[in-house]
């Protein structure tokens, strides 16, 4: 006999659990997927409907919309329906394996009705991944070479001219030397006047006069020697001026050589011109590619993210047992439409072996997609393990990428207008250990170019640039990329660069030489004029100084004669020692 009192409550409990699982599983799965999606993308994830069939392992998700964290009013990705076939056998083994799946109606960059930001401040906090920086960097890479060149040259030359430096030194040294000599001449004059006064004050007392004359003789002798020294100094100064002028000539020759070096425009690199002209255009391509790579690496990190909650114990992998990843998509077909070169394109593709535990997987993770229609593009991405490291390789090949008529360069500076056409774009990026390495090649055939603008101060470029623009039939660009995905470094090489650089060199050489010569002529002229003025002034004043010295000499001779008369000795014997000798003889 059935004990209903015992069975009924337990049956009711089981029934309620069954009801909760049956009705609540789908909402619970939907809620879980939204939470997981929002946690990994940092933006709103919407799922219209989710239905599951546990017995068959089929999961169907309708109306998926993943908002773009950087622009919340747009969707990063939208899909009409996703049908996923769960491997129930693997599920029994506690492995979530999607054996086959299809995501249809994928669209990217669609507009949202509601903001996709999780919190209002998210957009302002997140910023760009690095593409914005790259864009700015690429745009400004070659920008400085044109406007900076001539102005910088002027400053460089001014600071580097030896003649200017020597002239400045002379301009300081000569007046100092001259004033020193002038001071010496004044001293000689004063001493002469002092001697004159001394002779006039001589008393009649012979003993006192003897003492005074002896002193006079010593001072007169010293003054004569000093006068001679000053005269010789003046003569040396004149010689020094001649030597300094030779030094100045040498400095001028050095400056001319410097100008020739500066005017040698090997320093205008073709890369700088390429970066200047093509930086803006290429920045978008490169930053888009690196942004996607970064997003992918963020979603599927090389190493498994640490668990949010502390893990208790360790799951042991038994010997001889395959260590399978906990989450794996064996095959997933994708189909949708996107925007490429401002044109909508349809694409189909497939992903295989998608997992966040690639080391446990026996095959590399791959993504292959290709467009259908007028724009033919192909994307192939592979992630594989090399020992403990993960290596990502992305190859994009677009055979006919439409490019509109566009202006290369800065319209306020030098710019070229390139006709519309189709380009072949090929890019390969490799990332291993956060080291990014790759290149992007762009080739537009049958292109026609014309000069957009030339800066006023470089108007002489116009003809040369016109010639280069009209003679260029193919535009070929190579962008070499290295660094890290967050901070890529780029180097741009194009066929425009060498051609323009050659043309610019020719014209710019003349321009720079003309400017430099004008500059040096102006400065030399000023220096020469100043030196000539100073020299003529010096010579004139030197004559005066010499005149003063001559007068001083004459006065000394006259005084000496007068004193000798008073002493009653010949003037030629007049000197301090001879006076004493004379007295002793008497």
């Amino acid at each position, binding site marked *: 006999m059935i004990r209903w009192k015992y069975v009924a409550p337990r049956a009711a*409990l089981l029934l309620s659990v069954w009801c909760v699982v049956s009705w609540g599983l789908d909402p619970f799965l939907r809620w879980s997927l939204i939470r997981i999606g929002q946690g990994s993308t940092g933006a709103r994830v919407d799922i219209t409907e989710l239905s599951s069939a546990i017995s068959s392992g089929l999961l169907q998700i309708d109306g998926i919309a993943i908002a773009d964290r950087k622009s919340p009013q747009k969707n990063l990705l939208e899909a009409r329906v996703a049908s996923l076939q769960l491997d129930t056998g693997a599920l029994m083994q506690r492995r979530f394996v999607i054996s086959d799946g299809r995501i249809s109606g994928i669209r990217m960059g669609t507009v949202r009705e509601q903001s996709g930001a999780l919190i209002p401040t998210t957009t302002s906090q997140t910023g760009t991944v690095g593409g914005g920086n790259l864009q700015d960097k690429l745009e400004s890479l070659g920008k400085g070479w044109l406007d900076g060149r001539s102005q910088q040259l002027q400053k460089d030359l001014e600071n580097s001219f030896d003649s200017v430096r020597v002239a400045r030194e002379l301009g300081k040294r000569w007046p100092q030397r001259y004033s020193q000599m002038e001071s010496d001449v004044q001293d000689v004059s004063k001493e002469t006047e002092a001697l004159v006064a001394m002779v006039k004050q001589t008393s009649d007392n012979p003993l006192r006069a003897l003492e005074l004359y002896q002193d006079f003789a010593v001072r007169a002798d010293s003054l004569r020697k000093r006068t001679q020294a000053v005269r010789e100094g003046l003569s040396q100064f004149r010689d020094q001026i001649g030597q300094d002028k030779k030094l100045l000539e040498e400095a001028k020759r050095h400056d001319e050589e410097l100008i020739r070096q500066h005017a040698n425009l090997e320093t205008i690199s073709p890369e700088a011109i390429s970066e200047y002209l093509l930086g803006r255009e290429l920045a978008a391509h490169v930053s888009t590619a690196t942004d996607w790579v970064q997003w992918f690496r963020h979603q599927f990190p090389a190493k498994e993210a640490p668990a949010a909650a502390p893990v208790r114990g360790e799951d042991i992998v038994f010997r001889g047992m395959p260590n399978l990843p906990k989450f794996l998509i064996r095959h997933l077909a994708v189909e949708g439409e996107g925007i490429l070169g401002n044109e909508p394109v349809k694409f189909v593709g497939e992903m295989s072996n998608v997992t966040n535990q690639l080391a446990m997987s026996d095959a590399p993770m791959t993504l292959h997609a290709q467009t259908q229609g007028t724009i033919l593009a192909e994307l192939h991405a592979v992630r594989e393990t090399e020992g403990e490291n993960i290596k990502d390789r992305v190859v994009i090949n677009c055979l006919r990428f439409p490019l509109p008529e566009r202006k290369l360069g800065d319209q306020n500076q030098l710019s070229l207008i390139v006709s519309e056409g189709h380009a072949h774009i090929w890019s390969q990026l490799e990332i291993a250990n956060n080291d990014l390495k790759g290149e992007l090649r762009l080739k537009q055939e049958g292109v026609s170019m014309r000069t957009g603008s030339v800066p006023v101060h470089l108007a002489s470029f116009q003809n040369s640039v016109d010639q280069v623009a009209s003679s260029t039939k193919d535009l070929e660009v190579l962008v070499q990329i290295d660094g890290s995905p967050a901070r890529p470094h780029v180097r741009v090489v194009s066929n425009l660069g060498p051609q323009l650089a050659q043309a610019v060199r020719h014209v710019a050489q003349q321009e720079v030489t003309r400017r430099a010569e004008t500059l040096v002529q102006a400065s030399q002229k000023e220096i020469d004029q100043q030196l000539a003025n100073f020299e003529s002034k010096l010579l004139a004043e030197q004559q005066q100084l010499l005149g003063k010295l001559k007068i001083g000499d004459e006065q000394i001779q006259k005084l000496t004669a007068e004193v000798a008369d008073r002493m009653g000795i010949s003037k030629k014997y007049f000197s301090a020692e001879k006076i004493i000798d004379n007295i002793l003889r008497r």
Partner: protein
Amino acid sequence: MDWQLLSPLRSVLNLIRGERTRHQLALGLALGLVIGLLPKGNLTAVLFATLLLATRVNTGMGLLTAFCISWISPGFDPWCDAVGRGILTYGGWQNQFAAWYQLPLVPWFGLHNTVVLGSLIFGCAAFLPAYYLSQPLFAYCKLDKDSQRPSGESAS
């Protein structure tokens, strides 16, 4: 209001507060101890929880014990981990473990985890001592139906 509609709820409540013999209380406590020690999120814990609900043990005592032990059980993890690791990594049993592990649903029991296996062993080892030692305690505290029965009336 038709009180008959609430009869299933009343039955569930009776399930929790019923079964109050000394034996049933001790069994509830012992099962709750095992459940509390085990890490949750695996079928082993679900199995013991089902056992608690499906058998005539005191469910309330079991749930209360499981709740309290769950709070302190991470403190026993180092010992549980050592015991579980010792067994799971024993060379001679690897092939057998691997064969069991590949059976359907077995991985969901989580017995390949060192702490789950260690906790299970500790829980099973503590089951009988908990059962026998708790009975005098319930009698002393007069929590069981036997102690509350008037003297002279025997237990059914």
